[in-house]
């Protein structure tokens, strides 16, 4: 049982961090389809940083810096250059996937995976069997609750939500939606760096090309499934992760009797199911638009 819980926590934590980044963006009115790209930048930068400096902390800081920079770039393209946010997000994802593959090739001289000798700090023997979990897993509930408090119980959170729901209302009380979106996206960059770092160094110590394998998009789906609520979206991400772990379990139990590929699709099927269910429950996600309604002059 412990083993099962550990497996679920390990596979859900990266997804949850990235989901929270998506929640922050969604609340300000941005559907961030760049999550996949940000996550893989976080994973790659952490591993390469460790490989270069030998220190996890420096690797992680490099990941945070790059993810924040990429998020700010996304903000600039959407807010200042007025690009379509969906296209811009997908562009960032493409940049992340391609850029990390390129970075690995440039650093290693070939396209193999990069392995490093140290990973994220672990909880240690105090927690018994759970001691193998990384600090990212332990911090995850704190971050979820912290974000919930920020959004629900502070004025900044209300203004942030107002930006996404009714930007003109936010502007009318003197808030600056553009700046709030910048803050939300930059904070999301930090969360994506954490998600990527946990994916690459939480239980493994390696980076492989395309290792996020669509998790950024699953996180995006979790935001929709959870209606942009930090706690519900976290549970949605947890649900997708459980589906994945169960798939592996089933495979271990039944071996080759069930096609390998079919089981691997389980988390993705769960994602589609989740989005379909949430669409049925709430009448679908709202269209992504940052334009304010302007009545007559």
């Amino acid at each position: 049982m412990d083993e099962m819980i550990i497996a679920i926590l390990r596979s859900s934590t990266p997804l949850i961090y990235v989901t929270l980044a998506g929640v922050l963006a969604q609340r300000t009115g941005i559907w961030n389809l760049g999550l996949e790209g940000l996550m893989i930048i976080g994973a790659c930068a952490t591993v390469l940083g460790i490989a270069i400096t030998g220190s996890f902390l420096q690797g992680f800081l490099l990941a945070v810096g790059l993810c924040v920079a990429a998020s700010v770039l996304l903000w600039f393209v959407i807010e200042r250059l007025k690009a379509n946010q969906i296209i811009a997000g997908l562009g960032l994802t493409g940049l992340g996937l391609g850029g990390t593959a390129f970075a690995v090739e440039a650093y290693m001289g070939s396209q193999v995976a990069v392995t490093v000798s140290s990973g994220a700090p672990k909880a240690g023997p105090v927690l018994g069997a759970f001691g193998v979990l990384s600090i990212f897993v332990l911090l995850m509930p704190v971050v979820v609750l912290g974000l919930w408090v920020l959004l629900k119980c502070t004025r900044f959170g209300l203004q942030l939500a107002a930006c996404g729901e009714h930007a003109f209302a936010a502007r009318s009380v003197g808030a600056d939606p553009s700046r709030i979106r910048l803050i939300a996206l930059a904070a999301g960059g930090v969360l994506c760096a954490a998600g990527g770092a946990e994916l690459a160094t939480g239980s493994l110590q390696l980076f492989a090309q395309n290792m996020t394998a669509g998790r950024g998009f699953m996180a995006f789906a979790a935001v929709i499934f959870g209606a942009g609520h930090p706690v519900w979206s976290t549970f949605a991400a947890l649900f997708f992760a459980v589906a994945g772990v169960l798939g592996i379990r089933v495979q271990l139990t039944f071996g080759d009797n069930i096609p390998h590929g079919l089981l691997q699709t389980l988390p993705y099927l769960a994602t589609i199911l989740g989005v379909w269910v949430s669409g049925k429950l709430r009448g679908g996600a709202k269209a992504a638009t940052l334009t304010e309604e302007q009545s007559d002059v």
Partner: protein
Amino acid sequence: MHRSFVPALSCSGVTVQYGPVTAIAGLSIEFAPDLIHAVVGQNGAGKTTFARVAAGLVRPEQGQISVNGRPLPTGSVPNARAAGVELVHQSFALPPSFTIAEAMEFGSTRPGGIFSGRSLARRWKSHLRSLDITADPNSRIRDLPIEIQQGVEIARALVTESKLLILDEPTAVLSPSGIDLLFDRIRRLKSMGVTVVLILHKIREVLAVADTVTVLRGGKHVAGPLPCTELESASLARLIIGDGTTVREGGDIKALTGADAPESFERTAVPVTETPARTTAPLLEIRAVSTAPDSEGPPLSQIDVTLQPGEILGVAGVEGNGQRTLVRAIAGHADLISGTILFSGVDVTRENLTERRRQGLRIIPFERNTEGLSLTSSLWENWSSGALLQGSLLRYVRPAQMRASCDTTLSRWDVLYHDCRQSAGSLSGGNAQKLILAREIDDEARLIVAAQPGRGLDVGATAFVWDALRSARDRGCGVLLISSDLDELFDISDRVLVMLSGRSVGEHSAPYDLQAIGAAMTGANQ
């Protein structure tokens, strides 16, 4: 007026341009403190822009705003709010999912800290009560009736020590009794030492509440602030409309500016064409229709509507009482639970919009720019879309021919344009509405649903729309006119039906009794 005061708000030489359009040009006004000031003008006169400049939402190209004699940096909401200027928007600006308490808090400038829903409700309880808002602070904005939403919006504007409150067309969405309530509220604010600037477009309302009136026309200052005691509605109407326009005299002007006597409306005697003996079935018959609930306001509930050929049936009601769902039900886009819809006695309940259009249904939709037109498409494409959807989708179309007949029709409808290949988005509001009329009121039109056809149009364009509807009626078409503007309804409807919460709550015929209809709109007589 003599300047024996430091003006609460003054603007000098303010000019605002939206692209090539000059919204206001060199506007200079001064408002004395502790009074209720009205600013009036037609649509497009620059009233809303003026309000937004004063509140810091729009940065003017030129000009200066001063509050209590101190110049204010323009284009900054925080600065304007710090100086005590607050603006209540025409279509309210509160996030619908917020609770009342959250709506107070998100615009507050007092130290906030971390709060819970309960502590927030406690924090704002006394503030809300002092403004007579008794609704539960934890109820959500979207669940509130429109009068209370407006009250909450005013309370939101007063969370700081506001000294100058600007309300942008606050009466546009209210029922007559809601307007009385609002005016009481405004008078109370005045007694509390708040200077109020009210943007209005009905003379009747100006004279009922304001101390002074200022008239804008075409983005320029025409007159004022004039003391209201020395004014007559007729001269004010002339100031608002100007002398150069060629709109119809008489009833329309009065109705358009709301200068009529307030108590009851004698309809200008438009002779109703002798209704032929009703041997034929009514043009439109809606029998006990109910719809499934959805996000667009209350569902229809057992509603009955009958429309004869050659009549204009007005549908009155405060916005958001099922009017949109009614239009969608007639168009075949609503989710009907029960009931039937008949066109000329033929059951069309299961037919789609194309089939209904084939039977003569035409719709002038609520939202001109999103439902009525594709702004990025050309005029001729917009114009021909109605006809193209009839018949086989695979038939051969000759664009040149389409363009030629589009040109003929548009010039007949007085649309101002230079090439029918220009995009619909380049038309002004009035011309865009004429383009829709040109498409919808064609020779095959029999049943015309006109949803807020005069909204956002200036007086001339509105009069044009009314004339078009009247002549369609005189040709034997049936017109269902949905409007929240009672003046519009009273002026051109043969009968008026009142909607409340998705039901029909009574029918009225001329002469209309404003009190009775107002009471029906708000459910006061139930």
